[in-house]
């Protein structure tokens, strides 16, 4: 398929430029630097791999319009994982509806030249014109090294090599001009890295009528990736005979070179190391870069784990300490809005919907915005600085031992923010069993949506005291909940490995990038987008669910209850005949109002259902309100806060001293059963609720993503069933054992 085409209506030719490279080589930064805001995000047809395209123009090349395609990051075109397959297909121009690139810009991390050249060799075989963008040369120079880019260009067969620092925009204009000049010029001759045996094999395959227009790169993939997607496509296009011909040529090649996988990695690595050795020069006598010096401490077996633990503790302590003042402000703001809006609406269902449902429900969720922001600031700093892969490296031993791949760690760490991108990130895992195992356990990581549930319970029922004089108990409990998810994930993975996937442990190959100072704009943009998503979610899905829960908790609003209480109110008012008993009567009236609100709530559809289900959850220490809040939050776990906010607003009259949800929960008592009159929430009950939320899969988006990634409903159902069962048993154990210990 030819990429260059006339742009309709402009008379300008559109040149398709693919930007490719290893993960974390700064590919997306180069893409952003070239296109600015002129970009579109979508998906590749038929798959969930994200596709970003953008446009740009080049001075003095007015007759050309350039369309830049961001190809998924990959280490090799030997396609085994879905991301690699899409990257290979895109570079070979095999995706229906997608043009073959006219020019491929291979972005390489100058500090990891050997490994990057491995990929460059493969891209050179695709048949399109190739440019190498040598990124992060500033970091290379800081480490006391330099690259002779002219020599590198020569050794790569004349491929243009442009040194750039994408994060600062250095060299981007030169790169654009090189793209424009390279289009239409003769393609460079790739170095013969595969050797004579491959040349003979390629000729044999071509002679035996290979499909027309197929590049050497595609034929190499057909030959080397046994049973891979390239082979399947080749056989499908060439008919029955092509399979036999291919197997014969491959058999001859194997006789010459041995194992095909080892052969390719061997020849490419050898050539890459040889070229890197010729172009890299150490100019400084400094032997250890700053990264090496930091890593000596951060990756130390003992000190490294201590630093990791300390960072986690600081993060969770900060969530409480720093967010508190702003949360109080937001709380007061919603209190003031409720007090201002309420009297403007006539008494009745609409006033209750606005004050108890919308402000009480959605407001209770939005209060947690400062904590979410602080969590994401920490995550963004840890990711941008390059610490995250090191954290993965530190805990790798435990993960590898339980059957997960080293590559499982990044998806699992991403799941601390949200399980959805975490599950999508498992596409980099080639081994299907390890990928499935990672998908199964990733939702156990405590995502940001669990944070409001944890913090409201901790703030209300865990004393704000110090442990060992310097550690806050509240922060410690929060850290333990995050740890609980990780430990349970390891145990589940181990059990699945022993009883279901009886396989060997995975190996670990992970790049440790150089440390970088996170920039304010990068952290700011990421925190802002995530905070915006949280607010939007509260204003849309949570808002809609809150309205329905309010309606179920308000109606039928029986007239019988209204008449009964009106009669009792009249009796109290008639007895208040002199100033001495007027004060007593007003107290009785407030108590009666609370009793009336409680009676309406118990009689509501939500209340009736809750009381029916309550016996199943009493062993967990929950009353019907907690039970219903937990059940209502199965589509999205933040709903529990909105539901508690709504039902505690409906179930009691607000007075100035107990306006917040925390105060109302502290004052809540059992309405029936043997514990009538006793507080519903105790520290043990709060722990039981938190453990339930830590282990339960209350997220529709996660289940839908698992279905999309695994191709069926089997795994989402498995995840839902095992996590819900685990959550119930965990909460039961906490309440029964904790209740026994503290009673």
């Amino acid at each position, binding site marked *: 398929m030819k990429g260059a085409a006339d742009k309709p209506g402009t008379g300008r030719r559109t040149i398709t430029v693919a930007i490719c490279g290893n993960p974390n080589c700064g590919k*997306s930064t180069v893409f952003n630097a070239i296109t600015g805001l002129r970009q579109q995000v979508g*998906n590749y047809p038929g*798959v*969930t791999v*994200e596709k*970003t395209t953008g446009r740009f123009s080049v001075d003095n090349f007015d007759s050309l319009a350039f369309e830049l395609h*961001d190809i998924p*990051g990959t280490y090799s075109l030997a396609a085994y994982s879905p991301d690699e397959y899409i990257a290979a297909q895109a570079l070979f121009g095999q995706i229906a509806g997608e043009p073959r690139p006219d020019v491929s810009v291979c972005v390489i991390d100058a500090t990891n030249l050997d490994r990057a050249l491995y990929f460059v060799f493969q891209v050179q075989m695709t048949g399109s014109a190739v440019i190498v963008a040598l990124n992060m040369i500033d970091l290379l120079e800081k480490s006391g090294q330099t690259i002779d880019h002219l020599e590198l260009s020569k050794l790569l067969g004349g491929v243009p090599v442009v040194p750039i620092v994408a994060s600062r925009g250095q060299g981007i204009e030169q790169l654009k001009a090189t793209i424009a000049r390279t289009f239409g010029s003769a393609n460079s001759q790739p170095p013969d890295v595969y050797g004579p045996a491959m040349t003979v094999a390629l000729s044999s395959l071509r002679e035996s009528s290979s499909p027309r227009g197929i590049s050497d790169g595609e034929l190499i993939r057909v030959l080397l990736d046994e049973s891979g997607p390239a082979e399947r496509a080749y056989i499908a296009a060439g008919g029955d005979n092509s399979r036999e011909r291919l197997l014969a040529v491959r058999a001859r090649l194997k006789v010459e070179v041995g194992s095909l996988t080892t052969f390719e990695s061997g020849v490419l690595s050898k050539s890459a190391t040889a070229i890197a050795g010729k172009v890299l020069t150490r100019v400084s006598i400094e032997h250890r870069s700053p990264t090496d010096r930091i890593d000596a401490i951060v990756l130390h077996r003992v000190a490294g784990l201590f630093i990791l633990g300390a960072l986690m503790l600081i993060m969770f302590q900060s969530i409480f300490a720093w967010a508190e003042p702003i949360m109080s402000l937001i709380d007061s703001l919603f209190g003031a809005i409720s007090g201002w809006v309420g009297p403007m609406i*006539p008494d*009745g*269902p*609409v006033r209750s*919907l606005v004050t108890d449902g919308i402000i009480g429900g959605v407001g209770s969720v939005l209060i947690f915005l400062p904590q*979410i922001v602080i969590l*994401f600031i920490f995550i963004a700093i840890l990711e941008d600085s390059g610490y995250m892969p090191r954290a993965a490296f530190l805990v790798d031993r435990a993960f590898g031992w339980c059957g997960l791949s080293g590559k499982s760690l990044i998806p699992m760490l991403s799941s601390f*923010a*949200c399980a*959805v*991108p975490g599950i*999508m990130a498992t596409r980099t895992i080639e081994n299907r069993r390890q990928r499935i195992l990672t998908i199964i356990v990733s939702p156990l990581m405590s*995502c*940001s*949506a669990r944070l409001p549930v944890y913090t409201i319970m901790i703030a209300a029922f865990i004393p704000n005291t110090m442990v060992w004089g310097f550690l806050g108990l509240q922060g410690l409990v929060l850290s333990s909940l995050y740890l609980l998810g990780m430990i349970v994930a390891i145990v589940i993975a181990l059990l699945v490995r022993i009883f279901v996937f009886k396989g060997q442990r995975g190996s670990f190959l992970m790049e440790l990038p150089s440390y970088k100072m996170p920039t304010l704009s*990068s952290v700011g*943009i*990421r925190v802002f*987008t*995530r905070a915006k*998503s*949280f607010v939007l*979610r509260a204003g*849309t*899905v949570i*808002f*809609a*669910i809150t*309205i*329905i829960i309010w*309606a179920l908790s308000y109606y039928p609003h029986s007239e019988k209850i209204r008449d009964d209480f009106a009669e009792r109110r009249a009796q109290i008012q008639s007895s208040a005949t002199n100033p001495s008993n007027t004060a007593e009567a007003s107290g009785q009236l407030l108590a009666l109002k609370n009793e009336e609100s409680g009676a309406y709530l118990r009689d509501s559809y939500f209340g009736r259902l809750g009381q029916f289900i309550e016996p199943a959850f009493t062993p967990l220490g929950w009353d019907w309100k907690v039970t219903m809040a937990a059940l209502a939050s199965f589509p*999205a776990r933040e709903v529990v806060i909105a539901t508690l906010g709504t039902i505690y607003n409906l179930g009691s009259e607000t007075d100035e001293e107990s306006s917040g949800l925390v105060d109302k929960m502290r004052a809540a008592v059992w309405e029936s059963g043997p514990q009538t009159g006793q507080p519903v929430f105790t520290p043990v009950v709060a722990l039981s609720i938190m453990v339930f939320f830590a282990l339960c899969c209350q997220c*529709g*988006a*996660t289940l*839908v*993503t698992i279905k*999309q990634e695994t191709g069926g409903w089997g795994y989402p159902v498995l995840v839902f069933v095992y996590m819900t069962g685990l959550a119930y048993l965990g909460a039961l154990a906490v309440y029964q054992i904790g209740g026994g210990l503290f009673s």
Partner: protein
Amino acid sequence: MNGSFWQTAIVLAAVATAIGYLIRNALRRRKAQSACANCPAVKSGRR
């Protein structure tokens, strides 16, 4: 037409809109390739 009628009508409209929104959202999510749209944390600003 009294105030109670209008209050009930407003509440009914709000509930119907909420249910409609959730159903539309669920159907859209089923069609979409990515379930990220409603997640609080997905859009990280980089790939």
